[in-house]
């Protein structure tokens, strides 16, 4: 019995030590782990751009940085509270436990309460939460904007089951908007104002290094903004459960120098490539169900699936789930359900020849 009791105390101490160390080093641990794994993630990123992981303590722009600064204050207060109160618990447990050889029937002094002490532990928490509430409100006000910041690039984000559509609203662009899918390109050091809309269910747009999440809700327009301060491929993913492939609705934001961004924009404005050597593939694309859902400007105008006019300017397919290369693309067209089970793209049961032709056609859409 003695050994069990001693063991219990020891184990309790070990546990509290573990909890304290773990919580104090939580963020640090994440810090250590995060950069190390960046190498593998960049396999689908262009070699020149660093991949920025969805890690909230690595902010790359104002909203994320404001949150980051506030969160250290909160973490600090909570860590102090944790250590103090947990320390009180364990001090009490160790000091006031029944001594091993205590066989007496005497009860300890009965203390029914103490007004000063109880008032103290009402007032002190009140003061702490008052401070927290004030800083919270201040940060809310500086992040939640009601209109676009001056000079912002305006983009409409439309969440679909299970991919993202982006429409650039820019007066400089003929037609007023450019439609792209899944990969958002932005210039660095310029605010980007996102108008969030949903085509079906609720999604949530969350790129942690740039900004907090904002829900994408049908029949309810939301706005959010960010301002990337360094070049890179920023990762994120849908953060509101939206059905089968919620996990397969990845976010990719490419932030580049303004001139590179302008060059990219030009490729998206350019007319559809019309390569006669893949005419057979284009015909299959038009005749089969592909054209019902996908738009290729001048070829088809489906609205339910990603615009493919400049497919080959992207790095991934299936909303970031797979890299865009000829083999994967062919496998994806052959049987989308194998790569992304439950997604809305059906297998059209094309034979080998048709499959090759359609793949070849899509590979020309630069």
């Amino acid at each position, binding site marked *: 019995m003695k050994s069990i009791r001693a063991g*219990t105390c020891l184990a309790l101490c070990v546990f509290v030590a573990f*909890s304290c160390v*773990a*919580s104090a080093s*939580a963020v640090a*641990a*994440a810090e250590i782990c995060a950069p*190390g794994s960046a190498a*593998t*993630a960049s396999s689908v990123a262009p070699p020149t751009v660093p991949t920025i*992981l*969805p*890690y*909230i303590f690595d902010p790359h722009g104002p909203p*994320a940085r404001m949150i980051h600064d506030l*969160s250290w204050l*909160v973490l600090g*207060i*909570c860590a102090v509270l944790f250590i103090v*109160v947990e320390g009180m618990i364990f001090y*009490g*447990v160790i000091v*006031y436990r*029944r001594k091993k050889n205590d066989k007496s029937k005497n*009860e*300890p002094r*009965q*203390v029914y*309460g103490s007004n000063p*002490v*109880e008032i103290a*532990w*009402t007032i002190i928490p009140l003061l702490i939460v008052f401070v927290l509430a004030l*800083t*919270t*409100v201040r*940060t*809310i*006000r500086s992040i*939640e904007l009601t209109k676009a910041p001056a000079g912002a690039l305006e983009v409409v984000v439309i969440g679909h089951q299970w991919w993202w559509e982006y429409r650039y609203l820019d007066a400089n662009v003929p037609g007023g908007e450019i439609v792209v899918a899944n990969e958002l390109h932005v210039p660095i050091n310029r605010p980007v104002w996102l108008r969030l809309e949903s085509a*079906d269910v*609720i999604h949530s747009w969350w790129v*942690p290094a740039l900004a907090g*999440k*904002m*829900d994408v*809700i049908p*029949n*309810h327009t939301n*706005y*959010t903004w960010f301002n990337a301060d360094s070049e890179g491929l920023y*990762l994120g*993913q*849908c953060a509101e*459960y939206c*059905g*089968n492939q*919620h996990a397969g609705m*990845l976010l990719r934001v490419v932030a580049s120098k303004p001139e590179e961004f302008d060059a990219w924009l030009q490729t998206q404005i350019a007319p559809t490539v019309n390569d006669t050597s893949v005419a057979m593939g284009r015909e299959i694309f038009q005749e089969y169900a592909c054209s019902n859902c996908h738009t290729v400007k001048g070829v088809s105008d489906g609205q339910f699936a990603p615009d493919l006019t400049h497919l080959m300017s992207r790095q991934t397919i299936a909303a970031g789930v797979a890299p865009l290369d000829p083999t994967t693309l062919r496998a994806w067209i052959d049987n989308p359900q194998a790569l992304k*089970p439950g997604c809305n793209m059906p297998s059209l049961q094309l034979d080998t020849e048709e499959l090759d032709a359609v793949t070849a056609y899509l590979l020309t859409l630069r």
Partner: protein
Amino acid sequence: MTTAPIHPISETSMGFGSRVHSWVISVDHKKLGMMYIGAGLIFFMLGGIEATLMRLQLMKPLNDMLTPHGFNQMFTMHGTTMVFLVGMPVLLGFGNYLIPLMIGARDMAFPRLNAFGLWLFIFGGLLLYYSFIGGDGLYGMGGAPDVGWFAYSPLTSKAFSVGHATDYWILGIMVSGFGSMTTAINFMATIVCMRCPGMTFMRMPLFVWLMFTVGILVLLALPVLTGAQVMLLFDRFLGAHFFDPQQQGSVIFWQHLFWFFGHPEVYILILPAFGMICEIIPVFSRKVIFGYPLMVAATLSIAFISLGVWVHHMFSVGLPPWLNSIFAASTFLIAVPTGMKMFNWIGTMWGGNIRFTVSMMFATGFLVMFLFGGLTGIMLAVVPFDWQLSDSYFVVGHFHYVLFGGTMLAVFSAVFYWFPKATGRLLSEPMGKWTFWMFMIGLTLTFFPMHLSGVLGMPRRVYTYQPGRGFELWNLISSSGVPFQIVGVLLLVTNIIKSLINGRVAGPDPWDAWTLEWATSSPPPSENFSKIPTCTSPRPLWDRKHPEDPDCFYE
């Protein structure tokens, strides 16, 4: 007073069939309470199997053990089961068993309504689980519901939820919800009307106070959920447009209704646990609870404030800054009474003579774990921080610390504490100590790393994740905690069965405790007390055991 446990001889001599019959037709609050807890523990194991499957799936990136649809069913059923079929019935079961004994009554106010409530809950649970077979409907689309336990519209609309899975979710919860409401009515009437002579409100054991508050919250929150579910049924079957964005219906309106229920629900799940801790810590610290009136005040203010915090589940919905600010403030405010409780428990232990039985170990574990969950809750109340953390694995870690590390540890503590009263036999202490450490290690391993994967940007409810984002290690550690918890559950079940057969005989008052349930035999006779007791203070048995210095001198 020191009599051997009274075994209801009439019962042990009965055949199996008639014994089952006697339980099924019973309107005795003790049998009903035990059936609530027993059924809750069975659902706990079902929910645990679902959780185990999820952890296996998430053990490595791009795992394909479960299909996305299968995984989505698992987390929906896990959440729904744990909240509606484990948390509520187990806690209401303890209330059922203990309230009449603690206030010196012979039974609940409405015994037959009480039985009705139990069977509604069991039927509701079976209806929900029948969806695994019947959810296909005529469409052949997937079994169990896959919409998440908070079933956000429009995922629940006919367009996105084909078949009948969602209907089983609605009806199963609605039916068991009616059961909970009848139980709450019973609690209120029992506590208001059936107290023994001398038992004023300010002499009630704190557990009874907490259950009284829970009764109010159940009666207030569950009808709102039922109403929202009726609206959803109208949408699905009559073509109404409550949550139909195509016809200007608002999907956010569902969230408001759901969380107006959902946040008090969280307190429905934690307040009874507070009540258990309020009974157990004083007895094993050998000290009266510190600051009884403040505890009552804190309880009532938690209940009151909990009505005005629901929007903190919706900070990322894009509500105006002033609304977010108000709800952030109210959420911070609720930390104050919760903190008072925590300090009062520590104050009770302070200067005591603490006996570390398994029950007390679980109670201490509750303090340790709940504190952590409470502090991460404060982080989530910081709206901008919540914009990052909400709907990430951080939240999953947070509420498991509160509901598993909090509620369930308190329930285990209560099982070890009141098992001898209910059965007349003590649970094995050495085996219990193993159970405790298995759970502490398992809980920490499973739920602590979830905070980190959340900080690293892993959203909740994903059936898989991409390699190379830093999630792998933390998910692997999370999954590695599962075996410890399984061993813990198995040890607990073995302990219960073994002790029922040949556990040490407990006697009426094995813990030298102070509330009225220990004044009767273990197990109590069917009428609870041979003579209705009287009550002179919040600790009537202390007064009897210490006539030289009774509590009533200090009132």
